[in-house]
């Protein structure tokens, strides 16, 4: 099971951070040629950002269109059938929704395996040294690419490797919104492509778990919760409620989260020295990575840990944005919030 790496967005070691970027190269030229060939299969396609975000994609006599999380509408003359996932998070969210690709990435961080995909016959287009292999992508002849949208609104892969846009039009799925919005877009896209949703009951179970958590939080509004992880041997990171999908979700359910100073400017987390960890004003700590719990002596001296108000969720991956995966999280949080007591941690950081 992988661990999360929390850094500032520009430093994020995303599955594709090793991409060679927009270097004009033999590979790029080849991709351009293959891309042009792929485009011949489309009688008409394009993207525009003239319309605002809409809630539904559509397909019919007038072709197919979909407005993505950037608010850009992709219009094609017919409904695409050959889909390629350009990042792990996109792949996990869409596979969980029921969409099966012809090409996909798996960078080995455990995000994709968390949704247990059957990828027989699916072209693997990621290599550890090159990132997305554009030749392999072109050979899979996709007619629609799905990329992740970063916090600044740019596409994660297409912004670094613009040649992919010559292969097929790109739809963006943002993974920096609440779980409802991420999984909702995945469902909407899957449905618009004419694919039956994998598990229609999953959303209902998620909503029930959310409802339980909302009630638990409402019963003790003073309870302060901190999502933390280990950065290095000297520091732990407090996750920024304004950045992370999970934290945006629980915050919307009323949970009182440990704030991060300057949190509005896309800071992923605040580093806190182990010397200051016992002073964090939190009553319930969530160890938000799959790394083992820390063995630092100050961890055991932290009031919330001493009181047993600590939870390390057993999530398959923190980045597999599916209804099912996060139902487990919301359910567990509801249980731990119910049993926790407010006022265990210090009032303010000393």
């Amino acid at each position, binding site marked *: 099971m*992988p*661990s999360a790496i929390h850094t500032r967005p520009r430093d994020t070691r995303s599955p594709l951070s090793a991409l060679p970027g927009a270097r004009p190269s033999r590979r790029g030229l080849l991709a351009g040629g293959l891309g042009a060939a792929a485009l011949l299969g489309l009688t008409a396609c394009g993207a525009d950002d003239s319309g605002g975000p809409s809630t539904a994609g559509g397909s019919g006599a007038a072709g197919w269109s979909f407005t993505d999380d950037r608010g850009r509408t992709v219009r094609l003359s017919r409904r695409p059938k050959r889909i390629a996932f350009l990042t792990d998070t996109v792949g996990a969210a869409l596979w969980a929704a029921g969409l099966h690709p012809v090409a996909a990435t798996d960078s080995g961080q455990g995000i994709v395996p968390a949704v247990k995909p059957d990828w027989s016959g699916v072209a693997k287009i990621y290599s*550890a040294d090159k990132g997305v292999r554009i030749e392999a992508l072109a050979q899979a002849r996709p007619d629609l690419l799905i990329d992740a949208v970063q916090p600044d609104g740019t596409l994660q892969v297409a912004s670094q490797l613009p040649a992919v846009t010559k292969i097929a039009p790109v739809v963006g799925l943002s993974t920096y919104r609440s779980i409802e919005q991420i999984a909702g877009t995945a469902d909407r896209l899957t449905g618009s492509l004419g694919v039956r949703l994998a598990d229609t009951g999953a959303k209902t179970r998620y909503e029930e778990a959310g409802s339980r958590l909302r009630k638990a939080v409402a019963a003790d509004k003073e309870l302060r919760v901190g999502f933390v992880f*280990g950065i290095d041997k*000297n520091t732990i990171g407090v996750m920024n409620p304004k950045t992370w999908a999970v934290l945006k979700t629980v915050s919307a359910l009323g949970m009182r989260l440990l704030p991060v100073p300057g949190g509005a400017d896309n800071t992923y987390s605040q580093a*806190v*020295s182990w*010397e200051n960890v016992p002073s964090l004003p939190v009553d319930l700590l969530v160890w938000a990575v799959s790394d083992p719990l820390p063995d630092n002596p100050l961890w055991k001296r932290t009031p919330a840990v001493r009181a047993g108000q600590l939870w390390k969720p057993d999530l398959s991956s923190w980045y597999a944005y599916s209804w099912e995966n996060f139902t487990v999280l919301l359910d567990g949080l509801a249980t731990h919030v119910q049993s926790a007591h407010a006022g265990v941690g210090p009032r303010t950081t000393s």
Partner: protein
Amino acid sequence: MGTATISTTDVVPGTDGEGRRRRTAVTAARLLGLLLVCALLALVTVVSVAVGAKAIPPGEVLRALLHGRASVDDSVVLDLRLPRTLLGIAVGAALGLAGVLMQALTRNPLADPGLLGVNMGASAAVVVAIALWHSTDPSFCVWFAFAGAGLASALVHLLGSRGRSGPPPVRLALAGTAVSAVLSALISVVTLLRPDVFDQFRFWGVGSLGGQPMSVVTEVLPFLGAGALLALGLSGPLNTLALGDDTARALGTGVRRTRLLGLLAVTLLCGAATAAVGPIAFVGLAVPHLARTLTGPDHRWLMPYAMVCGAALLVGSDILGRVLARPGEIQAGIVTAFAGAPVFIALVRRRRIAEL
């Protein structure tokens, strides 16, 4: 071990009486200087225990040291600050001393302990340990790091050695560079192909004094002690070696034996230091130069000075890392490079670097 202890600086012209008086004066000045740098280290040590990312009143710090772990603040002092301060002193001294040895053995002023592949050997071994056993427990990784350092050092010696004088300096440096490059590539390959290994290795990849239990100090101390004793015992032979192999041999120094024992001492010192805190650059390179400006090239003085200066520099860098980024911290390995490099550049520009 060779018995000749000729010094390149203590030969003072003049009559015997004058020379003796001058020598006595120089020795007294060096002794005083050593006491002063020791006082500086003592001051840095006190500050390191008293100051950190969390503000704790001096009275509370003293109470913790005298009466144990009654409060969280006591635990901060005893469980975090004390081990990292002791580790900083031991590792800084070891790296300073290893730097002097490396520069003397390779007769290269730019040599540092990393040149023999010792640091990379330790890093590569830790990567392998994480990949195979998924453990980052310091007490576990220490032994892998140490074994890796030893193996890399032995390999470098094997590749670089030929002839009865032991490995010639240039060949030794080239072999070390080549082995380091290969090991660096190995680390890159493993961390690139195994993101889970990268996730864990990142805790170890940058040298840091923090987060280590006191047990790590006691585990590496015997190796550091043995390496230091061995190195200090070589101070005389290294002085003669600085005059060239032939002269050293004529003065009764076992050249091959000196080089072999020197390499062993470097491996013990750097292997244990890297195993304890991870790779820390710059201390081993800059501290010998700093010490040499104070003592001249006589290894009998240079070595103790380098040990004390190395300890003070590393502990001082660790303090800076703790107070500059509150409420977080910056690893000492980063601070040594950032804070030490400008000082080193100024040193190089202002004074002529001593020829080796």
